[in-house]
Each structure stands twice: as structure tokens, then as C-alpha cells.
């Protein structure tokens, strides 16, 4: 127990000294494991972890889904999605903000990254909102929060990584994200309605579109809609694995971008290199987290905690609730992926021991990551918007996002209490 606690303290200390988190986890994992097991076996197991993580067919799902999202982002699809959503809902008060959330949800069905969704939407939705006189705090808040739908609505990089480290079925995780994703979108729209009810000046209504315009807007996205149906439908239906689906998705998005003449050689290279870089960055964290967790698993901490919690006799749901509180608080200051990978070796065995479904816990994890990504002072989505929208002060972005943080916390509480919201859809899968 003591060794593991020292290990956690070490990771935090090194991270505070500005060592990249992956290296901090790797260092502590290596030294800790060397301490409890001896250096010879530790060196061999480190080499084995690096080797096995590199040579892993199933892990190719990660770069392929990243690639799919990046291709579609470059193909300019976000514009069409936004126009479609606007044509249906733009004429109500705060209509552009509502449309942003719906477009984010649609974009999330192709893109598995919250940051990429927010970044893409900021280029599309922010100028339109600015033109119509929307308050900056509303428009940035809604883009930051809407962006997080990218990781709840499948595909989702976070779900893939959670599935890999906990050996949970990725297809089931994807299916489980659909209803909570729509719930989040709905609650965020309630947030927009609340803001524009209190402050009508913040989000004036736009013009009503004709049915003809709506149909034209629909026609523009059918290609990608088809791709989503094939990829996700194929995975849900058990026609192909998540890895195969990701390959089909990435290829489809590539041909889609090609057909729209949005792809030059230079851009193709850029998309590929960017996706490879993101992959390498994620795998560094992944490898380090595996070293760290093999250390934690070798200490008595997971067992001690399990025993301690059983003797405490708390209701199981309260324990998971307490974990969520820890996550939400940690998420305000920590980078979310590292937070999850760091805590999984301790929390996950407890959750399964209490008899909860790993798929449901995965959805909760995604929700706390969503919340962490937009909760000040350290929220990646907020920083991305701050660097992309130079004339909006970070203070405005912080001010606008609080209500949406609260709405996502409500979503977290709902999914915590009503497990079928996550587990109903996956129950149809084999």
C-alpha cells in the first residue's frame, strides 16, 4: 500500500516539475517495479511492454479512427452539418447555439476527439454567431461544451483506450455511448435555452429556413451519413470488429474527401502525419501507463482498497459516486487521459468487484473526461478555443462554460442513477 501511495505522489511531483506525464508515469512505474521485483525482471518487462504495445493488431483501431476524423474535418463537412442544423432550428431564440450543439453531435458521430470537434466547430460556428451579435461567453461556451460530444457519441478515442486497458468490448462501449450522448446534447440545449431566457440579447433568433432549403442541406451530408451507418452499424451488428470498422471508416472518409476535391498531395501528407503524431503521443502515454499499472498491480494497494471498501459496507453506488466526485475535482486541474490511465488500475478492480458492468463504468469515465475538458482552470477545450479565437478573452470563455459544466454534471448523475441508459443498447449485441 505504502509503495503505491509513494508512486502516486511521485508521479504528481514529477508532473509538477513539468516532466511530461508519460515520462513521469514511466519513470515511477519502472523504479517502483524495480524496487518491489528486482531490476532484471523489471528491465525485461519494460522491453516486453514496449514490444507488445507496438506489435498489436487491435491497437491499429486508434490511428484509424483518428485518421477518419481528420479526413472528414478537412473535407469541410462541419459547414454542411452546421447549415443543416441551422436550417431546422436557427429561427428560435439562441438558434445558432442550439444548431452548434446539434452539429457537434453529428460531427461526433465521425470524429472521436473532443478537441478536434471543438476546434473544427470554432471555425464554422463562431463566425456565424459573431455576425448575428451573439455574446462571446455564450458562443465560446457552447462550442467548448458541444465539442465534448465528440468523445461520447461513437466513435470515441477515450472509449477505445478505456476498452484496450480494461479489456472491455469496444463495440459495446460505442453502443453504450449513444443514449448518454444524446442526453448530454439535450441537456446542453437546455443550458442554451436557460442562458437565452435570462439574457435574450446574448443569442438572438435567426431567419426561418424553408423546407426546400432544409432538404438541400440534408442532401449535402448523405454521403457521410451513409459512412457512419456502415461503420457503426457494421460494428454493432457484429459484421466487423472495431478495428476493421475503423479501417473502413478511414478509407471511406479518405475517398469522401477525394471525391469532394478537398485533398491535395500536401494535405494528404499533412493529415497522415498529424494523425501519426497524435498516435505516437497517445501510445507514449499508453505504454507508460501500462508500466505504471504493472507496478501498482504488484503492490498490495488494489487488494487493500478492495478489502477496506468491503469492510466499510457502504452502498456500492455511493462508492462509484465518490469516485466520480474525485474525478470531477481532479479533472479541473489534470489532463484527463492521464488522469484516467493513472487511476484505472486502482478504481477498475473495485468497480468490477462491486458487480458493476465495465461498459457502464466506461460511459461514466467518458462523462468525467467531458466535464474535465471544459472545467476551468485547466480544460483543454477552453485552451484550444482561446488559442484559435484570438479576440475572445479567456475570462469570457471561463464565464460562459460554467453552466454547461453543471449540465454535464447533471448528465453524470443521471447515468450514474439509471444504468440502463448506457446498458440498454449494448444488451442487443452478442
Amino acid at each position, binding site marked *: 500500500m505504502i509503495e503505491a501511495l509513494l508512486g502516486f505522489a511521485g508521479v504528481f511531483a514529477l508532473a509538477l516539475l513539468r516532466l511530461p506525464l508519460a515520462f513521469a508515469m*514511466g519513470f515511477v512505474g519502472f523504479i517502483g517495479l524495480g524496487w518491489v521485483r528486482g531490476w532484471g525482471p523489471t528491465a525485461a518487462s519494460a522491453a516486453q511492454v514496449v514490444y507488445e504495445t507496438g506489435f498489436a493488431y487491435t491497437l491499429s483501431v486508434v490511428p484509424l479512427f483518428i485518421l477518419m476524423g481528420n479526413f472528414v474535418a478537412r473535407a469541410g463537412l462541419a459547414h454542411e452539418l452546421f447549415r443543416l442544423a441551422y436550417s431546422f432550428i436557427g429561427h428560435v431564440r439562441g438558434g445558432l447555439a442550439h444548431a452548434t450543439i446539434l452539429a457537434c453531435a453529428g460531427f461526433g458521430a465521425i470524429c472521436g476527439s473532443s478537441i478536434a470537434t471543438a476546434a*473544427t466547430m470554432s471555425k464554422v460556428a463562431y463566425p456565424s454567431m459573431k455576425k448575428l451579435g451573439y455574446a462571446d461567453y455564450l458562443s465560446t461556451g457552447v462550442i467548448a461544451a458541444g465539442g465534448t460530444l465528440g468523445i461520447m457519441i461513437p466513435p470515441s478515442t477515450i472509449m477505445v483506450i478505456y476498452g484496450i486497458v480494461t479489456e472491455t468490448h469496444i463495440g459495446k462501449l460505442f453502443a453504450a455511448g449513444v443514449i448518454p450522448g444524446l442526453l448530454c446534447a439535450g441537456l446542453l440545449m437546455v443550458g442554451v435555452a436557460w442562458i437565452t431566457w435570462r439574457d435574450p440579447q446574448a443569442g438572438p433568433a435567426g431567419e426561418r429556413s424553408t423546407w426546400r432549403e432544409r432538404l438541400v442541406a440534408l442532401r449535402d451530408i448523405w454521403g457521410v451519413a451513409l459512412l457512419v451507418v456502415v461503420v457503426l452499424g457494421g460494428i454493432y451488428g457484429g459484421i466487423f470488429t472495431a478495428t476493421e470498422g475503423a479501417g473502413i471508416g478511414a478509407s471511406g472518409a479518405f475517398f469522401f474527401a477525394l471525391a469532394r476535391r478537398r485533398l491535395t498531395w500536401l494535405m494528404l501528407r499533412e493529415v497522415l502525419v498529424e494523425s501519426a503524431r497524435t498516435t505516437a503521443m497517445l501510445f507514449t502515454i499508453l505504454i507508460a501507463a501500462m508500466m505504471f499499472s504493472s507496478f501498482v498491480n504488484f503492490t498490495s494497494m488494489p487488494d487493500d482498497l478492495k478489502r477496506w471498501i468491503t469492510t466499510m459496507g457502504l452502498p456500492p453506488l455511493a462508492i462509484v459516486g465518490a469516485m466520480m466526485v474525485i474525478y470531477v475535482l481532479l479533472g479541473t486541474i489534470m489532463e484527463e487521459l492521464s488522469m484516467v490511465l493513472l487511476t484505472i488500475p486502482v478504481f477498475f478492480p473495485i468497480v468490477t468487484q462491486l458487480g458493476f458492468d465495465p461498459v457502464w463504468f466506461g460511459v461514466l469515465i467518458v462523462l468525467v473526461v467531458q466535464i474535465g475538458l471544459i472545467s476551468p482552470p485547466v480544460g483543454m477545450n477552453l485552451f484550444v478555443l482561446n488559442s484559435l479565437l484570438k479576440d475572445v478573452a479567456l475570462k469570457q470563455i471561463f464565464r460562459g462554460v460554467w453552466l454547461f459544466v453543471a449540465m454535464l454534471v447533471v448528465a453524470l448523475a443521471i447515468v450514474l442513477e439509471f444504468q440502463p441508459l448506457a446498458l440498454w443498447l449494448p444488451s442487443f449485441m452478442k
Partner: protein
Amino acid sequence: MKRLLEWLCASLAALALFAIMILTLIDVVGRKLLSESVPGSLELTELLMVVVIFAGLPLVSLAGEHVVFDSIDPWLSRTVRRVQGLLVEGACAAALAGIAWLMWIKGSQMLEYGETTAQLKLLKAPFIYGMSVLCGVTALVHLLLAVSPAAHRRVGVDEAPGAGA
């Protein structure tokens, strides 16, 4: 030299990733529609994944895209940050050099046993050596950053990031 390295790694990673994509497409379509798969496609994907990850690694380090906790930066003086940078980059370089060394040993072992992939009988050792070399290159990148921190760009959020979360 730095430019050449960047270009080489980027090209390698890009080609490998594109190959994985096309390979998976052909394999799945072949298997589902023509009930004929590409022989050894799983192994090829694995080998290509190694290329994507480890050729991408020097690029990530060069671009300073590793996740760091930088919230307290504004409160530190320039001298402190300079020293801090030196230590951090040095530590990263040491860690990567260590991994490069471990992988080199592993590669030699595999060469000795003549370990190959199951279906296509490709020797695995060259790829392990490749991992080792690229980790070594990344260690050099960190040494370079320790000496000239100007090469370090801020976390790549200002250029259409596709980052993990």
C-alpha cells in the same frame, strides 16, 4: 540535418499509416465479399503500426506535443524555467536512451532465436532494431531541445489538433 530527419520520419509514418488503412480496407472487403483475405494482413498491420508509432515519436518530441502540466509556468522566473527545461529534457533523453538500449538487447535476442512472424515468416529483429534506433533518435531530439529550447514549440493546440481526448 534536423529538417531531413523530420522529413524522413514524417514520410515513413505517413506511408505506414496510409498502408494500414488501405490494407485493412482490402482485407475486409476481400474477406466479406470474396471470402478471400490478404495473406498475413494482421502481421503486416502490426509491423506497420510499429513504424507509425516509433517514426512518429521524434516528431511528437520535436513539436513539444507531449502532455505536460504547465499551469505554474507563469509564476516561475526565466532562469528557473531554463534550468527546469534542461533537467526535464535531460531526463526524457535518458529515459528514451534507456528504452533504446533495452530494445536493442531484445532485438539481438530475437535475432539469435531467429524469431519470425507466424504466417509470412518475416524476421522480427530488424523492426525491433528500428524501434531502438528511433527511440535513440528521439533521445537526441530531447538533448537538442535541452541545448536550444527555442526549437520547442508550445503544445500543438494552435494547429488543428487531433489530440487524444
